[in-house]
């Protein structure tokens, strides 16, 4: 024993180890420059007073002593928790119906369920005002209650976060081994027992991830509470008050730090779930093909119809709102609201900017996110360093856009920063969007990689095939649908994002999503709805292309899943 301790066995790093380690280090460097250093620059301010002197925890003490600020923390937590409790089970049933049932119209339901992700988060809020606002058609349904406040926030957030949860859960549920179900059937296990011992365990990692994603999305979203929150104060609007209302960067940074706490807790939960997750698609796995079973399929079908109808009606109301002349006084239809040049000087040019921004974010982001996730998942050396990088990769989700945007100004516009040339260009918007939406792509990639047996790599290694070849020839083709999903996710989010880019755009790079907010602010509600609709249609067109591409790809690369 003593000898062993004195002479620790040194692992020799193979070429593969070195490559994977290099990938992790690269990912770490990327996240350091694009995320950690900017945030660090800002968070140092939480320990300074307005003159830049170090004051220790004085700002935090002031935060706790201000009842309104502490109240907004509680408001954020309970609305996010309630949204999560509604969304995750609903998204699970929906994902289950899509992946594990033989009900008709699964492709269509999947497409409909992803619609909210295609639209700016403002859109459901606008639609809810048309429906349930003080002049709304269905106002009486609220029995004298008001849509402005937690009710409106939660309904809008459910709409907005549903597809995010669905994306993760559908990925988790689609990777399964039919042999487990065959074995269960042979053993005459009851349906409930199969659900409890086979289905749920394979999806556990996805459920934890989905809960974490929904919770933090709600906590950090600013557009919905601003439009429909009334006076109901949440953390994200508190950051807005401090930073934009009063230019109090120090207190804004404090609230930003408080906002990060859920991420740290969620990371712990994520780690915990991951340790209990085993690969479910082994190298010998057999893809699961659901059989017809009417008593399961038709209830699921009814559920999907209900959810889809709700989602579509909100979108439809907003689209209708974009066509009316002046709500609610003049409901005649017009296309004038689409002549954006009349409302904002950038006009349709802002749409062109958004498409470019979204295109580059997706094209660069998706391969980058997946390759980094692969390196982080498969690396066997580096020890705690890779844990740290994996932790950093989930932080972006917990960072409110406002905080990230201001952090970017401080970091990239600092005199002497060699990356300063990016400031004011489309490049900084791309970088910002990529990092802002890094986490969901990362989690989806990880979920996918977890469901692929590392045995593929072991076999390759014993055949002396270098890992980059296994990655290129086995992993990427098998994961192509997920990589495409990530690309589309990045595209649509870059199309719709507001909060971070509002501080970073320059006169010739103003995105359409910022134009939506500016027009709504100026009282052109219908023009704002019109631009939101254009964004939605653009994303939907790209999504339509994706679906076509996905079908072709699935036929060509996922043949192994069929028998």
């Amino acid at each position: 024993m003593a000898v062993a301790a004195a002479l620790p066995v040194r692992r020799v790093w193979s070429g593969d180890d070195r490559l994977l380690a290099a990938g992790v280090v690269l990912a770490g460097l990327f996240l350091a420059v694009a995320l950690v250093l900017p945030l660090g620059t800002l968070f140092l301010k939480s320990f300074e007073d307005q003159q830049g002197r170090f004051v220790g925890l004085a700002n935090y003490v002031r935060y706790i002593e201000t009842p309104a600020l502490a109240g907004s923390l509680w408001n954020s937590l309970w609305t996010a928790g309630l949204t999560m409790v509604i969304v995750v089970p609903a998204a699970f049933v929906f994902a289950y119906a899509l992946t594990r049932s033989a009900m008709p119209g699964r492709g269509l339901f999947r497409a409909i369920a992803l619609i909210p992700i295609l639209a700016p988060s403002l859109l459901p809020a606008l639609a809810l005002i048309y429906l349930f606002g003080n002049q709304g058609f269905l106002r009486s349904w609220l029995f004298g209650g008001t849509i402005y406040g937690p009710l409106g926030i939660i309904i809008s957030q459910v709409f907005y976060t549903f597809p995010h949860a669905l994306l993760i859960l559908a990925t988790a549920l689609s990777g399964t081994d039919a042999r487990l179900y065959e074995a269960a059937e042979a053993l005459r296990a009851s349906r409930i027992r199969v659900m409890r011992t086979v289905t749920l365990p394979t999806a556990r990692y996805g459920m934890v991830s989905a809960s974490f994603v929904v919770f933090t999305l709600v906590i950090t979203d600013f557009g919905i509470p601003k439009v429909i929150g009334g006076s109901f104060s949440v953390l994200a609007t508190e950051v807005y008050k401090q930073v934009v209302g009063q230019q109090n960067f120090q207190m804004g940074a404090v609230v930003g730090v408080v906002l990060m706490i859920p991420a740290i807790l969620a990371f712990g939960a994520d780690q915990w779930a991951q340790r209990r997750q085993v690969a479910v698609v082994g190298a010998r796995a057999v893809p699961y093909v659901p059989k017809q079973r009417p008593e399961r399929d038709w209830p699921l079908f009814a559920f999907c119809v209900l959810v889809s109808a709700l989602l579509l009606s909100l979108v439809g109301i907003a689209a209708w709102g974009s066509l009316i002349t002046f709500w609610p006084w003049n409901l005649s239809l017009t296309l004038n609201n689409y002549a954006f040049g009349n409302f904002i000087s950038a006009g349709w040019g802002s749409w062109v900017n958004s498409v470019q921004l979204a295109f580059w974010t997706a094209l660069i982001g998706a391969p980058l996110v997946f390759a980094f996730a692969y390196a982080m998942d498969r690396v066997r050396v580096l020890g705690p360093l890779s844990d740290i990088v994996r932790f950093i990769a989930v932080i972006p989700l917990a960072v409110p856009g406002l905080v990230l945007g201001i952090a970017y100004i401080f970091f990239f516009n600092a005199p002497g920063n060699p990356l300063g040339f990016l400031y004011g260009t489309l490049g900084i918007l791309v970088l910002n969007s990529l990092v802002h939406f890094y986490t969901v792509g990362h989690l989806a990639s990880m979920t996918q990689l977890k469901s692929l047996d590392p045995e593929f790599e072991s076999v390759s290694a014993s055949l002396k095939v270098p890992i980059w070849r296994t990655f290129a020839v086995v992993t990427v083709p098998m994961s192509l649908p997920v990589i495409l999903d990530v690309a589309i996710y990045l595209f649509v989010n870059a199309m719709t994002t507001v909060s971070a880019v509002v501080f970073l755009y320059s006169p010739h790079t103003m995105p359409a999503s910022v134009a939506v907010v500016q027009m709504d602010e100026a009282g052109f509600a219908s023009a704002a709805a019109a631009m939101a609709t254009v964004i939605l249609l653009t994303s939907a067109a790209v999504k339509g292309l994706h679906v076509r591409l996905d079908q072709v790809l699935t036929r060509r690369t996922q043949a192994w899943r069929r028998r």
Partner: protein
Amino acid sequence: MFRHRRGGDLVGSATINAGDRHMRRLLLAAACMLAFTASAEAQRTRLTVYTAFENDQLPVFKQAAERAVPGIEVVWVRDSTGIVTTRLLAEKDNPRADVIWGLSAFSLIRLEAENMLEPYTPKDAEALRPQFRSDRNPMTWVGLDAFVAAVCFNTVVAQQRNLPRPATWNDLLNPAYRGLIAMPNPASSGTGLLTVAGWLGTKGEAPAWDFMTRLHDNIAVYTHSGSAPCNNAARGEYAIGITFDMRAVALRNQGAPIDIIVPSDGVGFDLEAAAIHRGTRNLDAAKRLMDFAVSKEAMELYGRYYALLGRADVQPTVQNYPPEFSQRLADVDFAAVAANRDRILAEWGRRFDGKSAPRN
């Protein structure tokens, strides 16, 4: 790869950063050597102007400025007052703006305190009303026009609910308006702050807080932006929106069924002001733009949108403004309000924020 240039040439690009400046100087040097190939277009000095002017005003002001000051090109960076001010402060160590033209005087006083403004007294600045100038010599900022706190009153909702038309701030305390008034939160909106400052100025400190406490019972919502209350009133979400005059007039001209009321018991106001950003590399061009910003010609343009102008000798031409409101201005000491801002907001938050949950 990302640098996005419309038309692919340097002139067409509005991106101003250190690299571009350097590039442009090199290019200009090369152009001068070639002498004949340099077009007049390429030699125009580009001024990056940060502004919170309304979108529809930007092309008008740009065109006039470029005509009046030959050899400059105005490149706007436009957003709401809060965002522009935040950006200016965050960019303090490496400024991007040459000129600030059309931003709240409260914001400029804040920038002045951070030593971010270049002192310069524009030609003709003596013609401005006394309240419309910084008290430094040379001046750090000049006021162009004023916007005042106003009330948007939805006549359709009023008819439905049989509400009386308010004429003064105190009228808003009528219990008939309970839950029907929207007001901007002064902690997040400049309009909210100028409204509260107006009350403090006209009523005196203690009566003003007492007034706000009673008004609070009628308030349905404190919004984040100064435009939202009037937008809401225009859509009939609430009967009354406390806002600023410009927004109200714009909505009314769009066809919203609102009356614009400038309460007769004194209203707070804010100036739209202009200044040169300290550290600009185009100081001469910036000075000439400032000269234009306070000129009679520019004032006539502001007069198309605003009813109270910096120069008393120019008559505004804007439509649908309530008459004689300039006599109703509260006595607002901008420097004092800016200095007391933190205290005012803390007091406001203590009284109204903690219980700002929505009510019916």
